[in-house]
């Protein structure tokens, strides 16, 4: 289990502050998206985030625009998972479709502080933190299939290939 540092934020972190609209049709590569991740919320994040770090946030994370780059840029920046009290619907789907794990666990959010070093056991459904271990409900099997494939595009590609072989 890889350990990573906590980046802690509040409620209603919206997709405009995660990935500003002015870049949505100008930047197409994930690596470049990563350089602007959370730019309008925490201008230091993109430069200082390390591969395997975690974002821990409050209610309604990812509200706003349907732009999938909000998930893409966090994943490309190295974020291992986003842990929140709750997620906005489209972001939740987009994150899974980008292969970025999203974990709903209010207890862990209340306990976590910025800079804490934590790890997540996805098989076991537990977040291990200095304050203790917090269980979370695992995602449904169908959704885990998309995450395991590395995202929806890879998942759909596999599915189409399987269908072709059958026919």
């Amino acid at each position: 289990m890889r350990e990573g540092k906590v980046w802690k934020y509040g409620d209603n972190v919206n997709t405009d502050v995660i990935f500003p609209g002015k870049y949505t049709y100008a930047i197409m590569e994930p690596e470049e998206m990563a350089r602007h991740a959370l730019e309008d919320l925490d201008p230091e994040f993109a430069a200082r985030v390390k591969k395997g770090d975690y974002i821990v946030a409050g209610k309604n994370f990812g509200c706003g625009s349907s732009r999938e780059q909000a998930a893409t840029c966090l994943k490309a920046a190295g974020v291992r998972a986003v842990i929140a009290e709750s997620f906005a619907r489209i972001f939740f789907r987009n994150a899974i479709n980008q292969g970025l794990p999203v974990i709903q666990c209010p207890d862990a959010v209340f306990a976590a502080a910025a800079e804490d070093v934590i790890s997540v056991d996805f098989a076991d459904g537990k977040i291990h933190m200095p304050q203790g271990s917090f269980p979370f409900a695992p995602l449904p099997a169908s959704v885990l299939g998309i995450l395991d494939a590395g995202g929806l595009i890879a998942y759909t590609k596999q599915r189409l290939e399987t269908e072709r072989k059958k026919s």
Partner: protein
Amino acid sequence: MGKTFSEKILGRKAGKAVQTGEVVTVSPDHVLSHDNTAAIVKEFQKLGIDRVKAPDKLVVILDHVVPAAAEKYALNHKNIREFIAAQGVKNFFDVSHGICHQVLTEAGLAVPGALILGADSHTPSYGALGAFSAGIGRSEVASVWATDEIWLRVPETIRVEMNGRLRKGVYAKDAILYLIGREGADRANYMAVEYAGSAAAEFSIGSRLVFCNMAAEMGAKNGYFAPDEITLEYLRDRAREGFDAVESDADAVYAAELKLDLGAIGPQVACPHTVDNVVPVDRVQGTPFHQALIGTCTNGRLEDLEAAARIFKGRRVHQGIRVLIIPASRMEYLAALRSGILEVFVEAGCLILNPGCGPCLGAHQGILAPGEVALSTANRNFRGRMGSRDSEIYLASPATVAASAIMGKITDPREYL
């Protein structure tokens, strides 16, 4: 036990009776994308297939940065046009048509009972016509293009019972801002919002679009008005396909039933930097600003422009204020042109821009500098959305924006009507 409209529409698509909470695999009637079509094409090309499965279902409308503001946008548009031609997509609307949600609606593609998915978070708009419509991401659109299928969870429904009548100078925008302020930005997360009650039936399609468009700002998956005479009248000579309207049963089970007394609401303003940070206009009266925007998919229709024009008529925009008017579509532009109100705007000192999303998402046509403040009829006021992260956005009705533009500070519109 009765069924909600969501259970009925998704059940019909799934070919079986479905219940709230159930995950169904369904085939949509239309899949909308806009300038992001270029990025979706890139994802689609990774799937290892050449052809879109059901090209007649695609609706592609260029609106976000139109006409192209720089070479990179021009290249996106060019790639989209080439893909459209190669795939034989017939519902393609190039840069001259306007904002996707308005264009799809006025083209008669949004009909009662339809299932519409879109790569845009304001796709819930089409519930104004009795459709089930929800926003999805780019990967999902690429996947639907390939498979003609998507999984959806049948949402719980919040019923909003609207009673009373809006007072003079108060509009659908004020009512929905008030509701979002009262209920919070995540109140309807994952849920459908059904606007009902005696007052709901009196709203025009334009006003219903305001309510459903902004349901997204409560976190809703979709919004909905039961189709009625007003819906049928709007669709007469317009609907491009037959339809079978559905309504929620009287004994349908709702997650919550909210009440909204329209007569008790005055003009509202959403303050920076969240849409649920809503106050009555008198609480922020006198707040200075630099740029006004009247338009967007929320408030760029003829009824919105007329409400603003009534206030601008015979008056001048205050010195130091820039007023941008952006009709939601070419058809709304034409209607405004024929009615003579564009002349009112120009005489007052407003700047009229071409139909499109304009500066709403901060890409072009009126970007804010650090320290600047905008007052806008759009649906979002998130930090940095219209430009600098050190700028601010207030949201209000077209009438409030117009009265404020004349006074040079946020103003209650009721004394200017």
